[in-house]
């Protein structure tokens, strides 16, 4: 049974005013994702990538078509950590929401700090952490929500190139330790090829799937690997960009 099955989904945003007609963000999108698969989605700005994630997370309902998804947790583009909570309490937030006491939630979240190289930062407030650290904690929070599907919305878009590269290998390791079905939305084709087991290319609005490329390469992957570079070129070609 796939973790995620999307059949002919169309989503149209209702008209917001007299002069703004309804916009169709996604048109007839279909794909499935197997449990444990990392699905990378790339596409031009405004092609409905974020809408797709909101549909997967159940924040929106499709206008047409059918969507079957196991429960999904969202990692937003900006880390959106709560500035008044410590790093540990931010990560433990989903446990608290499920009714765990502060103490129990902290005890359950603390081992993850050690496993994911965050030890020593438990008590730091978000504004005392670097961008990369904040994203790790944001991802950990998403992981601790205990949902089988993770929806990552351009998780590293706001980071500089070096931090982003570090975060990509960190995420690969983290997912190896804690396998989940991942839907990774990105506008970085290289990132998609490095992290995904499969790459879906979406067309400009309204988004449709125009290419479905499977990436059967072992991790960790090198961005200089000829096969990676070939896949990257293929994806860029689908987007109509020079490789």
């Amino acid at each position, binding site marked *: 049974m796939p973790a995620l099955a999307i059949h002919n989904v169309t989503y149209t945003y209702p008209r917001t005013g007299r002069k703004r007609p309804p916009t169709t963000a996604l048109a007839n999108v279909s794909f499935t994702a197997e449990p444990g698969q990392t699905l990378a989605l790339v596409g031009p700005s405004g092609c409905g990538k974020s809408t797709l994630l909101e549909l997967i997370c159940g924040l929106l309902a499709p206008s047409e078509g059918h969507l079957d998804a196991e429960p999904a947790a969202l990692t937003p583009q*900006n880390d959106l950590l709560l500035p008044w909570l410590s790093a540990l309490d931010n990560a433990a937030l989903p446990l608290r929401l499920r009714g765990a006491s502060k103490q129990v939630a902290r005890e359950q979240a603390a081992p993850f700090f050690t496993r994911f190289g965050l030890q020593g930062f438990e008590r730091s407030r978000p504004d005392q952490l670097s961008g990369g650290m904040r994203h790790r904690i944001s991802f950990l929070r998403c992981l601790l929500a205990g949902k089988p599907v993770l929806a990552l919305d351009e998780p590293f878009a706001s980071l500089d190139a070096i931090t982003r590269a570090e975060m990509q290998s960190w995420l690969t390791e983290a997912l190896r330790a804690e396998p989940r079905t991942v839907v990774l939305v990105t506008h970085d084709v290289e990132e998609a090829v490095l992290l995904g087991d499969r790459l879906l290319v979406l067309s400009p609005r309204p988004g449709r799937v125009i290419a479905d490329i499977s990436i059967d390469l072992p991790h960790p992957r090198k961005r200089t690997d000829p096969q990676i570079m070939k896949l990257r070129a293929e994806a860029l070609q689908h987007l109509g960009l020079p490789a």
Partner: protein
Amino acid sequence: MKRVLLPLLAIALLIGVWDLYVHIDHVNSYDMPAPTQVARALYDDRSTLWSNFLVTAQEIIFGITVAALTALVAAFTMHLSTTARLALYPPLVVSQAIPVVLLAPLFVLWLGFGLLPKLLVIALVSFFPLVVTTTAALQRVDPNLQKLMKTLGASRLQTFRTVELPAALPGLFPGAKLAAVFSVIGAVFAEQQGSTSGLGYLLMITQNNLQLPEAYAAVAILSAFAVALFAVLTVIERRALPWAYHPGR
């Protein structure tokens, strides 16, 4: 040190200029007393000033508390319900546009000479800045946080408690600081509409008796109290909300 010294220096300079002006121009103390006369009045009338100060201080602290609580409730109601926001915001602005001069005598008429009409005047002048800044803080909450909280499994109430309530607090403090200053003016005004004690009342009778040094002494205490309230709120803000306080800003 600079934080303490510079304002003290500015005030000292102001008092110096005032003293110089009164002495050089031989200003009559019925028109404007010299700072030394005010200081003498502060010392001589200390027990009267103190007992009346207690009355006013109590009114102000109660008034601000009432205003802060109602402002929080109002801001949250308007944040959670668009209908409430559309319905309440215009009347709120109207409530500020109606001069207190018009309302205060009515409050006295309805509620008598006790604490209540003063509380109402103080709460009325403090309420508006509190609501405006708290509402602004709530509006700054990233709408994506609500989506995120939903996918983490939070109920609406949990989102409110964990996200919106803490996010509103940094808005409450700037409003409370403004309210601290407005409320002093409000208290003086309310007392002058009908009361038998308080610094505002004292100010009125000393002025009518042409005891200007005493009147100025009352004003000096009121000003000091406003500054103290402001400072206390700043300290509480930094202690309680360290994450919202960015030094150097």
